[in-house]
């Protein structure tokens, strides 16, 4: 199977107003998830990109919830496609950095 290319346009930064978007080109095969793409970026290009997940593509942990082209989705379920896909942190919750938001129960934080 030949690889296709996706462009992930990813929000970067620790505050919503001061952040910016960074484009990453990611090779993929049909069926790969957005989370596959984000982990490839972290391993090959930019380990500073903050992403959080635990179960990896099984949609059990529910930690990889984010905005994908403006819709709340799980990155492990959303598929990579050719062309530009914009990825943002979840809205209406405190932003930690990049795609990681503070969704923990208060009593589970330090």
């Amino acid at each position, binding site marked *: 199977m030949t690889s296709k290319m996706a462009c992930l346009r990813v929000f970067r930064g620790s505050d919503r107003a001061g952040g910016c978007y960074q484009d990453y080109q990611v090779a993929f095969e049909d*069926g790969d998830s957005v989370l596959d793409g984000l982990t490839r970026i*972290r391993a090959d290009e930019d380990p500073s990109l903050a992403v959080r997940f635990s179960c990896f593509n*099984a949609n*059990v942990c529910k930690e990889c919830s984010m905005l994908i082209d403006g819709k709340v989705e799980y990155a492990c379920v959303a598929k990579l496609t050719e062309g530009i896909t914009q990825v943002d942190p979840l809205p209406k919750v405190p932003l930690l950095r990049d795609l990681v938001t503070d969704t923990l129960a208060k009593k589970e934080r*330090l």
Partner: protein
Amino acid sequence: MKEPVTLTTDVLVIGAGGAGMYAAVSAARSGAKVLLIDKNVVGRGGATIMAQMTCASALGEAEPDSPELHLADTLEAGRGLCNESLSALLCEGSPIRIRELEGWGVNWARAEGGGFSQVKAPGHNRKRCVYVDYLATGAAICATLRNKVSRDDAIRRLSNATITDIVAHEDVAVGAVGYDIPTATPLIIKAGATVIASGGMTKMFQRTTASNNLCGEGIGLALRAGARLVDIEFLQFYPNGHLAPRMVGLDPTTWEPTRVKLGGRLLNGRGEEFLQNYTDTQGGEAYDTARDVLTYAIYKEVEEGRGSPHGGVYLSFQHVPADAIERALGPVLEIFARNNIDLTKAPVEIFPIAHYQMGGIEVDAAMATAVSGLYAAGEVVGGANGANRLSGNALPEALVFGERAGTSAARHAKRDAVRDWDTAIALPYVDTIRSIVGRNNGNSAAPGHLLRELKALMWSKVGAFRTAGDLAAARERINAMRLNDIETLTVADAATHNASLVEWCELRNGLLAAEALALAALNRRESRGAHQRVDLPQADDNLRKSQHIVLSGGTLVSDFAETWL
């Protein structure tokens, strides 16, 4: 990084899956204050939540059964290497824990007559395995335990925090060091007793059923603290692991329960059934085939040129009527459809996939390690399953051993606790973490890059079928990764949620686990259970004994001498 925060507790529990949460509940029940820490989210990470269906428990409601019969099946599957006292504990404790969980809200499936619905899983001689629902048993257990720990005032939960070292003082485990991931705050934890319940190391394999946090860190923590490993070379490959087409949004272990439930047919690349050619020595029907035998059969078919297009075998449901599939699978069909899988039209391809670590930290029947004050529970513990684990024995291992470890740790904390120690003892560990932040920033490979190489290496050279040459090469490369490569990795200097620092710390302890596995597999010069040596295909009666590994002066050392237990 910020200044360290010091926390004090009676019992520290590292890892909040099934074993860790049960340990927290039982320690609190024994009167201890508990700090329950998880690298991800308490009750949502780890392996338990991924468990699909079966939980073995000799409740004897579907047909006459007893813990003794369950033990006999477990010992037989273990191929002579079970620690019998641990196996017996698992089998005797399971019915108690299953009933207790029901009291806390787990809605185990019930038969028409009102008793527990119990099914027969491969390798069991009785209808013994309880379940909540098809594909949802682990999630139900986790939801109940998460609810339980969150309502107990004696348990403080801390999600998104990771432990990097056990602090030992005068040969006693007195707490741990780690950090809070979101805020990059180092943690110095003074604990009367510590329970490692961080799960196995199957993430270290390219194809795995593991969640992202199962990278063997508990093995590294225990080795550094002076504890011993037992039979770490035994790692179970799950025969019916999903291979193709690419499927996301569902666990790759989906096919074993689906196959049993619907009567799926395993076919080689030529469309022929093949299991009957491999099961003559084991006996039983195809669905009863033990996991190590089934894995062997699938490998052989592929090796001899009878594989499917992606290098596995087919699992076909095309003989099952469409309405029966729909009735049995319900909403799961939508997930299949999103992945272009239509079971009525085409088979899927499966191949064995790294699934469960049988070996692990050596403990006694109180879950105590060789280090005073240090306990362990769940998949990270070795011994109960010997050389091969029965389907359905992982959940009781987590629940029963978790309960036992929590009780033992609470007792130790009450009796022998050392909590009044100088924080300065922990500062070298804190400095290790601090020195990594921003190291080699941008000038070298990322931790994820090295992890990818490690996963490919473990898959190709330390997998289900092994040779001395492959294992020696793997061990040498992993040793170099552990001592050299790791020092050169890029770590971001981000102050909040520094994922590359988390990954670096995973590698630091996880590479110890990976090297221990390669070393142990090299030293066990026979084939037994899940450890199959192509160059030594027979079991050797002289090696019907356990192998231990310790970390001595930075070097992993193995021997087959009698245990300290």
